[in-house]
């Protein structure tokens, strides 16, 4: 660096001159029309004023699909300015209390949070079902269901326990449990159904999906906790194990559970403030409802076709104008 130093000031002067020259030549200026990112047009064609809406985005693809479609409609048809906030579930619920979240658009039960924020603190209210049905249960990769057809009945699980032994489960079969966000009764289930299995905690959805993906590809045995709607099921069609049927109240005592998980009605939760605001966006959230197939399609656009959530939502909304129309507030 010592060699070039003497000449540097002169070189620098040249550079400066060159720079000024370039600027004289021009190029598009920031803020002029056609300069890339134009500010989003808001309050389109003078409809009822919508204002700002804060939607929490929980970290899974199905949720994102729902949120993206709602956000798209809110922005394009109602002229709202939507802010999406990436939050874990519990933090999102807390946002009702601090006034920073207006809506959670796919909620999986969470009775404890409902009690705290809806019943006790009265900062949130339910905005009805999303139309999606949540299924939780035990699954095996398709190759296993094909090779051992009777494996899908829980009564036969003990027969196959040896297959599922791993370094983590010792001399028992392994039941891989998943994402800590979901309540599981699996430890109690295993005990009460007298299954020769040990619950191993994978700890994240990524770990579960990677496990199932490899199990199908390498034809290795795996039994794990999973749920639908979930984008991964369109890649590998996991087969659900039949547990003793769910009946009302059979899961009342967490220690004594010996039945399947209930069918979850996924719902929307909004802040009390938002519900009372009279914003057309609230009506949209309340009216919104679609099927598992709808969500799976948008989720597939995102996960497999690698679209952004916005692109996926735009495509779906374009293809389904009738469904969208039914959600819009009648003024």
């Amino acid at each position, binding site marked *: *660096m010592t060699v070039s*130093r003497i000449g*540097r*000031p002169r070189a*620098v*002067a040249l*550079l*400066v001159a060159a*720079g000024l020259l370039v*600027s004289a030549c*021009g*190029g*598009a*200026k*920031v*803020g002029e029309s056609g*300069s*890339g*990112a134009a*500010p989003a047009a808001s309050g389109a064609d003078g409809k009822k004023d919508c204002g700002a809406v804060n939607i929490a985005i929980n*970290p899974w*693809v199905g949720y*994102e699909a729902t949120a993206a479609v709602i956000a798209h409609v809110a922005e394009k048809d109602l002229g709202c300015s939507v802010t999406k*906030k*990436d*939050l*874990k579930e*519990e*933090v999102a619920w*807390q*946002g009702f*209390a*601090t006034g*920073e979240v207006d809506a959670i658009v796919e909620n999986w039960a969470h009775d*404890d*949070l409902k009690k*705290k924020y809806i019943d006790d603190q009265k900062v949130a209210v339910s905005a009805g079902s999303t139309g999606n049905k949540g299924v939780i249960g035990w699954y095996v990769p398709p190759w296993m269901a094909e090779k051992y057809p009777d494996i899908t009945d829980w009564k036969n699980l003990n027969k196959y326990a040896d297959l599922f032994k*791993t*370094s*983590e489960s010792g001399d028992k079969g392994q039941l891989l449990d998943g994402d*800590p*966000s979901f*309540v599981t009764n699996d*430890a*109690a289930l295993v005990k009460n159904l007298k299954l020769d299995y040990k*619950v*191993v*905690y*994978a*700890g*994240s959805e*990524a*770990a579960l999906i*990677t*496990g199932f*993906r*490899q199990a199908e590809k390498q034809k290795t045995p795996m039994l794990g906790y999973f749920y639908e709607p979930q*984008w991964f099921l369109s890649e590998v069609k996991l087969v659900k194990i039949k547990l003793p049927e769910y009946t009302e109240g059979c899961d009342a005592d*967490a220690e004594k559970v010996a039945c399947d998980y209930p069918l979850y009605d996924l719902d929307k939760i909004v802040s009390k403030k938002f519900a009372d605001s009279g914003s057309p966006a609230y009506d949209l959230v309340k009216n919104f409802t679609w099927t598992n197939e709808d969500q799976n399609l948008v989720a597939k656009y995102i*996960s497999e076709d690698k679209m952004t959530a916005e692109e996926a939502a735009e495509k779906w909304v374009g293809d389904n104008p009738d469904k969208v129309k039914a959600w819009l507030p009648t003024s």
Partner: protein
Amino acid sequence: MATQATPAGGLRRLPAWPRRYLLAAVVAAWVLIWVFVQGRDTLQLGGAELTPLHVSVNEASEVIDNSRNENPFFLYFVNYIRLFLDESVTFVQALISQPSFGRPLPVVGWLGVVAVATAVALLWGNLRVALLTAIGFASFGLLGLWEESMDTLALTLAAVALSLLIGIPIGVWAGVNDRFDRLVTPLLDFMQTMPTFVYLAPLTLFFLIGPASATVATVIYAVPPAIRITAHGIREVRPATLEASTSLGATAWQSLRKVRLPLAKRTIVVGVNQTIMAALCMVTIAALIDAPGLGKTVVKALETLDVGSAFNAGLAIVVMAIVLDRVTSAAGRRVEDRHRAGRSRGPGRRRAEIGAVLAVTGVLVYLSHVYVWAAEFPSEANLGRHVRQGVDAATLWAQDNLAVYTGAFRNAVSYGLLNPFEALLTGSPWWLVGAVLVAFAAILANVRIVLVTAVCVALLVALGLWQDSMVTLASTLVATVLVMVLGVVLGVWMGRSDRVDQLVRPVLDAGQTMPPFVYLVPILGLFGATRITAIIAAVVYAAPVAVKLTADGIRGVAPSAVEAATAAGSSTWQLITKVQLPMARSALTLAASQGLIYVLAMVVVGGLVGAGALGYDVVAGFSQLQLRGKGLAAGVAIVVLGIMLERITRTAARRADAETHGAH
């Protein structure tokens, strides 16, 4: 190291060799007793079970939640801090990353940011790091992640500035005042080892969702190195120098300002450097509470297991870490050189140089403010797609072809090492393990540490998570052993050759700053959701520190000793095993103790990929309201394990150090 005068206590100092036999005897006795009392008093607690302590912690946190709106502490204190933090981050974002002031683009465009960063590197560092900075910053755009990178940079700069603002004064105080130092040290340990997940959710209650919470979370993790290293630098100033200044009649304040601070400047720069690295570690975690930037890209990509995109964003984080590290290191070296050489260069030329650099930078910033081509990174120059495709292909190949071998490796390590060890730890009654730990402390350290260990064991029992703690401890120790194997092998290799050092170091930096999940997804494919996957994650993160410290130690061995051994006809192997490694013993012990702390920092990540135990407890506590108390207890248990193991190894290191020096 003269400050922490170890109380000579009742324990006689034993020479090095019988200690090894004593340890072996303790282990032998442990195994023997285990055979008879196996399975008794193991204090097991199921996944969803809670102890009264956990329940009452839950209730206490509810009370704090509910009183939030009335409490003046929140109304008048926390809220203002939050406002200040939000505003500062938003301001930096407006400058470099987000559309602002009615413009569709930030105030300074990509060309301007590259120019400013390069100028800073040139003026405070040297030409080489300036070049690196220019390339590194340009690569953010080339990876197609300019805006995200600038958001991360904005947040990191705000957090680092705040950390230094708090950390350096506290560090100086801790450096001059031993009592204060003893007071803050446990607090710093707590801040560094307490898993972020434990306080992430409560944090958003205080500081709300947004940049402020993310900044605070980052500061909590990044401020301890700033304080520690500053204090270390201040304390390191030789007593002779200080005496000289005192005898010349300088007041305490004068000698601090004129002697201690200038002499400690170089060490303080190292502290800045470590603070930056720590801050970048928090990027992905902060994304879970809506912190803007690269972390979001990583989290989003992982929802669909899109390893390619996650790696792409992870790469940008690594590049940012390397650039910031090299620039601060170069600045540190420059401070040192100038300190040694005095001001040799003519001030005139320096001034001309500065003027020229500033002029060019000014022009480029102006261009990037006005013209679109210099403001918005050209999207045609996006190489991110190729990175993504390459990584995806490599991942697929590895998962399809290596799974058989990795499965065999996993089973060998699990059945051969991990399972027996875990059985020993979890199968022993708690009092037996406690007694063994205390015995270890007695043999390796001193009376004070024996007390600390006993208290830690009691705490683990009281927290109600004894068995989970033992499972975690087993994995932690196995991981630490692997870390040290890597540390010694790579460290010796690097310490003996500068070329190797230059090649390996960026890889080590990547291991420390690449968000773990980016490499964990392929590893999950290879090893499954198992404890081994968690151990590998810990080794990837912790080995770099151990390698770097070992390499430093090897390089620090007096050249005269090496020459003497070579002249006496030692082979390379002999030279390494008989001279270099023994003489670097204190560095090795330090490497082990730091490696261990870093392994513990990954316990929670391990919980996400199949390690279960304490890591899973913390994660579940973050996700489910009724488990919050248990999660907090698990977090504390991790801290307790960390403090106990760190105190034992550090004191052992100091003893080893004293003995090596005493022998000469």
